C-alpha cells in the first residue's frame, strides 16, 4: 500500500509518500512562518492563500522524487482537522479530488493522530501500548495509546499549550515569531542558577498542566531587571530558567503518567518535541523508569506530510475511506476516533 499524504492544517504545506513495505519514499514541506512573522502570528486567510499556491507543486516534487506514477499509488490521505478551516479545506479539496479523479480511496486524517504516530516512522519504532506526550503549538496532552487509533487523554493543559508558552515568552525576549527554536538557542548561553521559575501544578496529584503562569513569571522577571546593564545576559538567563521549568514540569508529569499507567514506553510528539533539552531529559527519565523514550526526528515533530501519509496508510489498510465530499473540522476530539482495524 502506497499513500500520498497532504497536510495543510495551519502554516505548513506538507506532502509525502509513504509505502507500507518500503517506508517513507519522499517528503516535502513549505513553511510559511516567515510570511506570518511580520504579523506576529498566523493569519488564517494568508495561510489558506499560500497553501493553494504551494500544494500541487509539492505533490509533483514528491512523486518525482519517489519515482512514483499513479499506477503505484493506492490512496490519498489529507488532514481533515483540527485546525484552521480555510487552510484544511485546501488539502482536503485537492486530496479528495485527486483521489476522485484516479478512482482511489481518500482518507481524512486527524492531525493529532498524525503527530502521535510520527515516532512510528523511525527505527526502532515504539510498539503499543505506550504513553504519548504531545507538545505542540496548540496542544499539551498526555495520551495513553492502547493501540493505534484508541487514544485516552490522561492529562491536558488547563490554559496555554507548551509551544504557545515558548512562543509568547520568546516574544518577550524580542525573538522573532515563532520563537521556540530561537528560545532554545538563547537558553544555551543562559545561567541555570540565576533565576528559579516555578514548576506549575507539580505539587498536586494528577496529570494536568498549566503554562500561562510561566510566561507571566518571565515577563515580571524582565520587568524587575529592566535597568540591568547587560540585557543580553538577562535574556539568556530568563530563557534558560523558562526552559528548565518547562522541561522539569513535563518530566515530572511524564514520570507520573508512566507509573500510573504501568507502561514503560514514552513517545514524544509535536513541535516542542524538537527541543533538545527536553529530548535529553525524557530519554534519561524513561531509562530511570526502566523503559525507553521514542522521538520522531526534529522535522517530523513539527507539522509535516509524512505523518499524515503514515496515519492515512494505517487507516486505509484498516479499510477506512471516505465517500462523497470532503468535510473538515476546526475542532475534533482525539478520543472520538475509532481504533484502527488491523490491516
Amino acid at each position, binding site marked *: 500500500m502506497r499513500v500520498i499524504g497532504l497536510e495543510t492544517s495551519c502554516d505548513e504545506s506538507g506532502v509525502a509518500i509513504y509505502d507500507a513495505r518500503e517506508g517513507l519514499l519522499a517528503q516535502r514541506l513549505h513553511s510559511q512562518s516567515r510570511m506570518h512573522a511580520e*504579523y506576529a502570528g498566523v493569519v488564517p486567510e494568508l495561510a489558506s492563500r499560500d497553501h493553494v499556491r504551494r500544494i500541487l507543486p509539492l505533490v509533483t516534487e514528491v512523486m518525482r522524487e519517489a519515482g512514483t506514477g499513479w499506477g503505484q499509488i493506492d490512496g490519498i490521505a489529507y488532514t481533515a482537522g483540527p485546525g484552521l478551516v480555510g487552510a484544511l479545506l485546501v488539502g482536503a479539496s485537492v486530496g479528495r479530488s485527486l483521489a476522485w*479523479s484516479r478512482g482511489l480511496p481518500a482518507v481524512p486524517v486527524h492531525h493529532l493522530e498524525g503527530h502521535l504516530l510520527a515516532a512510528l516512522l523511525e527505527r526502532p519504532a515504539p510498539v503499543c501500548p505506550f504513553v504519548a506526550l504531545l507538545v505542540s503549538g496548540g496542544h499539551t496532552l498526555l495520551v495513553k495509546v492502547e493501540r493505534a487509533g484508541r487514544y485516552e487523554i490522561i492529562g491536558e493543559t488547563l490554559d496555554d499549550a507548551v509551544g504557545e508558552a515558548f512562543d509568547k515568552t520568546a516574544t518577550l525576549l524580542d525573538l522573532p515569531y515563532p520563537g521556540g527554536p530561537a528560545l532554545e538557542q538563547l537558553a544555551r548561553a543562559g545561567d541555570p542558577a540565576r533565576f528559579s521559575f516555578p514548576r506549575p501544578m507539580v505539587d498536586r496529584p494528577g496529570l494536568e498542566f498549566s503554562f500561562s503562569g510561566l510566561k507571566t513569571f518571565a515577563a515580571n522577571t524582565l520587568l524587575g531587571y529592566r535597568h540591568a546593564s547587560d*540585557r543580553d545576559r538577562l535574556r539568556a538567563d530568563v530563557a534558560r530558567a523558562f526552559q528548565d521549568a518547562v522541561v522539569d514540569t513535563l518530566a515530572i508529569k511524564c514520570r507520573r503518567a508512566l507509573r500510573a499507567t504501568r507502561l514503560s514506553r514514552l513517545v514524544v510528539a509535536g513541535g516542542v518535541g524538537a527541543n533538545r533539552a527536553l529530548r535529553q531529559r525524557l530519554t534519561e527519565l524513561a531509562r530511570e523508569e526502566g523503559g525507553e523514550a521514542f522521538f520522531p526526528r526534529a522535522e517530523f515533530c513539527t507539522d509535516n506530510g509524512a505523518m499524515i501519509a503514515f496515519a492515512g496508510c494505517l487507516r486505509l489498510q484498516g479499510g477506512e475511506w471516505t465517500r462523497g465530499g470532503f468535510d473538515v473540522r476546526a475542532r475534533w476530539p482525539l478520543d472520538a476516533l475509532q481504533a484502527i482495524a488491523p490491516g
Partner: protein
Amino acid sequence: MKLLAIDTSTIACSAALFDGGDPRERFEIAPREHADLLLPMVDALLAEAGWSREQIDVIAFGRGPGAFTGLRIAAGVAQGIAFGLDIPVVPVSTLAALAHGAMREGGGTRVLAAMDARMREIYWGAYELEGGGRLVARGAEQVCAPMDARLPVGEGWFGAGDAWDVYGDILRLRLGPRLAGWDAGRYPRARDIALLAAPVYMEGGGLPPEQALPVYLRDNVAQPKKRKPSAPE
C-alpha cells in the same frame, strides 16, 4: 470536447457538463455545504450523461471574485481533478459568468455584474456582448464601495447579482435612466462558466493544473503588526 465546469464562489454551488449542446447542470443554493455537495453533484451529472471521468478533456472553474473559502474549494477541486486526469484548467471570472447568465436568460447585451463583497464593498464588472457573440469586459473588475464603481458609457445596462439588492439604491441612483432593469436573485453558475470556458479551451487557452488559482480582487486582508523597538527604554 468534453468539459466539466464547477462554481462555489457564492452561497450557490453548481457543476455542469458541456460537449457542444445544451450544458447539463446541477445548481443548488447551499451555504457552507459546497465541500459536501460538489463532487457528488459531478458524479450524478457524469452518470446521467454516461461519461466516465477519464473522458473529461478540460475543467473550468469560477476563479472569483467571491467568498474566499468557496473560491479555494473550486480551485482545489479543479487542481486535484486536472492533475489526476492530466488535463488543463480554464479559470473563468465569476462576474463574467454572472453577466453571461443574465444575457442568456434576459436577452440583453449589456450587463453590470455586482456581487456583495461585505465590508460595505461590492465586486463589480461591466460586460457587453459583441457581434460574434463574444462577451467582453468594459474595464477591469473592481472591489470597491458602490459609490466608486466605474460606470461604463452608453445606455440599456441591466444589473445582475445580489449587490443590486444590498446596494441597489445607490447603484440605481448613479445609473439613472441608463439602467434598463436588474435581477438581484442571480448568482454565477457552472452552466455559464462552461459556455465561457469552451472557446478559451478550443483556442488553446487551457492552463496547467497548478495555475488553477483564485482571483480574490481583495488583497489587503491583514495588517502587519508594527515591530516594537527591540530594546525597551
